[in-house]
Structures are given as C-alpha cells and as structure tokens.
C-alpha cells in the first residue's frame, strides 16, 4: 500500500541515472571545458580571400599558406592593446620560426598603412577585413587575438588579448615544436 507512493521517486532516480550517464559520455568524448576556448579549436581554419593592406590590388588567399604552421594575428589601428603588442610581434617575427599573417579588421586603410610604415611590419602579409566578416568567421571576440594554425590546417591554439614573450614561449613554442600535440607543462618548451 505504502510502496506505491515510492514509485515516482524510483522512476525519477532511474531517469537521473540515464541522464548522468549521458552527460558523462558527452564529457568523455573530447568535450573538455577547461581547455576549450573556442569552438574552432582543433577544427580546420576558416579560409578567406582578402585584399592586402600593403597593396590593395593584390589578394591574400589563406590557402597559399597551407602545409606549414603559421600565426594569424587580428589587429586594428583603433585597438590600444595592439600598439602594446606590436613590439612583441616584431620580436617574434625576427626569430623567424613561423610566418605571421595579419588580419586588419574593421579598420581605415590609410591609418593601417601608416601604422605599418611607422611601427614596423612584422607580418608576411596583412589581409584587409573591412567589414569584419572574416574575423566573425574565426570567432574573434575583439582585437588583439592570435591564432596558431598547424601544418594540417587546423587551429591549434588561440590567445585572446595582447601577446607577451612569456605567452609566446610557454604556449605557442611548445605547440609549434610538437606540430600538433596536447598542452605541455609550463616552461618546458623554451
């Protein structure tokens, strides 16, 4: 007599078990929240074709850079942090480990050309993303942001905010040296 009032509780506990197991499985299949910063990580980099800031009659095709690792740095002249970051990019470019492609987003062309002339150009080429469409494709929150794209064309890492030499050494270099590999402990890479 009394037991029938326990039936809802028993059914509910069974349901919870199924849900819990489902969640556990969803979690186990490579959906690790702590590492995940962008849904694009580990996926193929979105391709784009854009005019070059340095020479608007030329076109940059992201597919030309396929086959080896490169950095994509999102910047703009209106971005204060980008100015702070610029010397770091120049230093990284001097190390000559990977090419850096610039993505100048939602910017004024004249300002951007003046910026590169005045501050120095760390980029092998800079794409002019006038309306920010390509930045949107890449899931950019704001500028600056830097992506590491592996030789297989997949996005290996994404850094939001200004790069520093420390971030470069601890996060980017180990990944570049390993090709594509899980995160290495801090400091081991350099």
């Amino acid at each position, binding site marked *: 007599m009394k037991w029938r009032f326990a039936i809802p509780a028993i059914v509910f506990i069974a349901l919870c078990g199924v849900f819990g197991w*489902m969640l556990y499985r969803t979690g186990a299949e490579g959906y690790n929240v702590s590492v995940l910063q962008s849904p694009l990580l580990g996926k193929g980099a979105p391709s784009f074709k854009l005019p070059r800031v340095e020479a608007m009659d030329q076109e940059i095709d992201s597919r030309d850079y396929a086959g080896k690792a490169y950095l994509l740095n999102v910047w703009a002249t209106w971005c204060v942090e980008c100015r702070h970051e610029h010397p770091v990019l120049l230093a990284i470019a001097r190390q000559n480990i990977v090419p850096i492609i610039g993505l100048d987003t939602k910017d004024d062309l004249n300002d951007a050309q003046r910026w590169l002339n005045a501050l120095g150009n760390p980029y092998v080429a800079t794409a002019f993303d006038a309306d920010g469409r390509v930045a949107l494709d890449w899931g950019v929150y704001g500028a600056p942001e830097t992506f590491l794209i592996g030789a297989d064309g997949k996005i290996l890492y994404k850094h939001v905010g200004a790069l520093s030499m420390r971030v470069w050494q601890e996060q980017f270099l180990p990944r570049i040296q390993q090709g594509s590999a899980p995160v290495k402990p801090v400091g081991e890479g350099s």
Partner: protein
Amino acid sequence: MIVELGHFALVLALCLAAMQSYFGLAGAHTQRAQWMAVARSALVGQFVFTVLAFGILVYAFERSDFSVRYVAMTSSSALPAIYKFTAVWGAHEGSMLLWLLVLALWSVAVAFFTKAMPESFLSRVIAVLGVVSIGVNLFILWTSNPFERLVPAAVDGNDLNPLLQDPGFVMHPPMLYFGYVGMAIPFAFAVAALLEGKLDTVWARSLRPWTNIAWAFLTVGITLGSWWAYYELGWGGWWFWDPVENSSFMPWLVGTALIHSLAVTEKRGLFKSWTLLLSIFAFSLSLLGTFLVRSGVLVSVHSFASDPKRGVFILMLLALCIGGALLLYAWRASRFRSDVGFAMVSRESFLLFNNALLIVATLIVLIGTLFPLFIDALDLPKVSVGEPFYNLMFPLPMLPMLLLLAVGMHAGWKRADLSMVRKPLLIGAVIAVIIGIAIPLTGYGKAPLMTCVGISIAAWLAFSALIEPFNRIRRGHSLSPSVLGMSIAHLGVALFVLGVTIAKSYTADRDTALSPGSTAQLGQYELTFVNVKDVEGPNYTAAEAEVVVKEGGKVIATLHPQKRIYRVQKNPMTESDFLADWNRHISVAMGEPLGREGDTWSMRLQYRPLVRFVWMGALIMALGGIIAVFDKRYRTVAAKQSSPVTAQAAAKQGV
C-alpha cells in the same frame, strides 16, 4: 564598476535566499514568529537585490558595455534600443537571470497575497522557494555568470541573432518564464503540505488562483513562440514537436491536469495525494525542460547555449529538488487519505479520466522527446521520432478527452444527474455532426473522415461550453467568474481544435517555376506572376515580384515577395509576403531565378486555412484561466478554516 555591483548584488541575493530558506524552515518547525518574520524579510531583500542585478545587466546592455563578455556576445552598438533590451535574455546567461528574477517576483507575490493560509505554512512555502532560488542563483554564479568581464574589451559586439530580432521575441521568453517558473508555486505548496502533513480545502483554494495565473502565462508564452516560429522561420508550420517546444508543452499538459485535479481537491477533498504528485511533476518538467535545453544532451534548432558543465549542475539541482520532494512524497503521501467516495458518473470521475488522459499525453510527448536519448544510451543506431510519431499517438488520448469534456462539463459532484442536459447535448451533437460534414463539403470541397470528426467534436464542444452560461443568463441567475472562466476556456479548446483540424486537412503547398504572365493553381486560388523588378532598400537590393491572387476570377490580393541581398553581409534573405485574413493565410516566397533571361523564378506557394484559430483558441483558453481567478471565494480573507457550510455552498456553484 557598476557591472561588478551587479555581480555583488547577485551574491547578496544568494546569501539572503539562504537565510530565507533556513529561517523559513526552522521558524515553522519551532513555531518562532520572529524567525518566520526574518524569512519574510530575507525574501524581500533577495527580491530587491535580484531586481538590482537584473537592472544593472539591462543598464550594461543599454550602454553597450562591450567589456562585459555576455553583452559583447549578444548585442552590438547598431542594435535598435528595444532589441538591446530584449538581447538581455537573448542567450543563456541572461535568460537564467530572468528566470531567477521571475522566481523572486512570484515568491514575493505569493508571500504577500496569500491571505488564507497560516503563517507557519507560508513560511515553509517561502523556504522551499528560497531553496529553488539558491539552486538557480548558484547555477548562474558558477556556470553562467552574465557579469563576467571580457579583457580586453571588444570594440563592437557580435550582434543579436537576427532571428531573435523580432517583436514576437520581445514578449515570448518573459511570458514563457512566468509560466515555467510559476509552476514552482504548486511545487512549494505541495512540499510545504507534505512537511506539515496537512492538506485541506483552504490549501487547494489558496493554490488555485496561482496555478491558473501561471498556467495562463505558460499558455500565452507557448502561443507566442508558435506564432513567432510560424512568421519568422517561415516554414509554414506552427508546431514542430521540437525538443524545446516539447519541454514547454509537457509542463503545460501536467499544469492543465493539475488545474482540474485541484478543483476536485478543493470541492470534495479528494485526489489529495494525486494533486500533490501533479504539483511536483509540473515543476519537475519545467526544470527538466531547462536541463534538456541547456545541457546539450538534446540538440535542437532553438537551443542557443549548451555546455555539459551546466548540464551536470542542472542534473544535480534536479536530483536534489525533485528527488527530495519525491522521497518526501514516498514517506508522507499515505497520510493524505480521503474518506468520501463518488459515483461512477460524477464530475469526479470525469475529471479523473481527464487527468489520466492528460498524463498519457504527457508521457507520449516525454517518450518522444527522450527517445533519442535512450537510443543513444543503449548504443542503438540513431533513430529520430518526428512528427509522424506525434501525429499518430497524440490524438489517441486527446480525442476521447474532448468527447468526455463535452459531457463532463455538465456533470455534478458526487453523483451526476445528466438527464437535465441530455436533450440539449443530443441536439447539439446532431447539429455538430451536420456542421462537421457541411463545412468540409461546402467550404473546402472534400471531406475526409478524420476532418469531419475533428470539426464535429469542435462544434459539439463549443455548443456544450455555451449551454451553462446561456441557461444561467436566461434564468436570470448570476454567472460566477469560475463558471464563466471554465466556459470560455473550453470554448477556446473548441476553437483550437477547429483551427488545427482545418489547417492540417486543407493545407496546400506548391513549389513551382513561374515566368511572368504564367499562373499556378493553389487549392481554389489562382496565383498569377505578373512581373519582377529590382528595388533598392536602405541596406539591401532586392528582386521584387508581383503576384496577383484570384479566387473564382476575382482579384483578392496582390502580393510583393522579395529576394533581398544585404550589401554588407552579401546574404540572400527571402522575404515572403502574406495575405492574412481571419480564415486563411496565403503566402508567396521567392526561390531562385531560373533560365537565362533571369525572369523565371522558382516560387513557394502556401495556403493555410483557418490557421489563426490555432493561436486564437489558445489565447482564449488562457483568458478563461485568468477570468476564473476573479471568483469571489478566492478573496475571502477571513476563511482561515473551511467550514462545511461554505464548502457545500461552493460545491453547488460548480467548478
């Protein structure tokens, strides 16, 4: 800085909710009036700080503060002011804060406007609502904080999903949440009654208005969602049996059952443990809906944020809230005995069938929604149960329910004497069958069996719903809001059934290629494609067609659908044009240009008869629920104890 204050206000609200729960429970247990007063004050504080947190988030949106991650993700500086406001609940974080705000609103309303219950009972209700607040607040702070900063700040936001930039979306989520979250009230009442071990007529009478209001909000919310999907998604359908839709529909079905079971508990003191169980179920399904939509366990077109970490938290919340309530139920429910009986033919037995059939319907939807999950858990190949499953299964409990409803409305309590209404009901049935055959034949030219059945049932139901108010007015009797509300709500059911039947039966769709001057037949309408020309909009260029709609040789409308290319995003957008009358919708949407000349187009033509009745019927149901709330007996403040005399008097009034 302001944004950090919002975060802080949320933390304070959490602390106050903890006080609210502790002092509410402990105060009621030890019968200390001061502690119970503290619980009440803590609730007010929790409400104030939740409002403050929400207000600050709104402020961040209006100011377009893109240093807040959530604002940057869902708004943009170019967004119109009204959509900046609605973008607050345009994604997961903000909509959870809205959930919490609505819960606080409901809690305060219940605490201050429920007069008839003793303070110790209300104190327990406040405490249970506090526990739910704690859970949701922790969920927001831990997994989905809308006040999280974005360093460095974004220059502009990602914009609100264009689909959500629609008037329908301004009202749909708040309405839905008022309904969803309102189901927490019966839940809190049920848990408090289980804790006290006492449940009487006053309990049911105090709960009924709240349940009705919450249910009406849920009805309106679901209706708006359906209307939004119909117009904005433009798929020509108004219900897709999508997991997100289902997760709001299941609490509605159980809520409907609860409204009816509460009537029996109030009038006859019966179905007590059943009413308690339904109260727990209705809120469980609301929480389950949140879980399914937010956790990523089920993927749907509607769900905009999903994350397993959130899923784990909601599952824990679900297990604690619902599991706790159900264990309490298992332990205590046997105390709630009813000694009175009722005859085979009586209002009680009709309502019992109503409840059973509604629960069967809920189970069908639940199974359909969770089926893919179980399939997945058992590692069977992925199979989806879609519309065919529901279209086959859902009418099975619903058709008998509608027939029982038409008779049951007139049944008296305890032992029904239906001889008084036998004649009008029979006459009504004959007229209804004639209407059911006549409308399809004269209006639409063909009469499939199920269509005739559907229309007949709707007509009979409408007729039956009007008997009682008509009789009372004719005899000069007063018409209480309870009876009026019931009749109106059931009339709404009839209109809804009529709309669904006709819209489903006589829908016509055509995809066809048209060149200028050519004509296509759609049902009894002739649509002539006159020409196509280029037009310039503010931020797009478009090809605009002119299509003339004729019925029996007479022009009834000229439609101008467009195919737009937005200049910046280069996205083509199809803007279909509607002919929207009370009894029909005809829409034309342009597909792609065909042929070398570029003036032949593929077009999608749709005809939806009587589709407006679907939403109108649902809104009338909600209206009926609200009218019933205004019944005098819900306002009797002094009724601390239910005297047998008033209970009988109320029973005579009906409902």
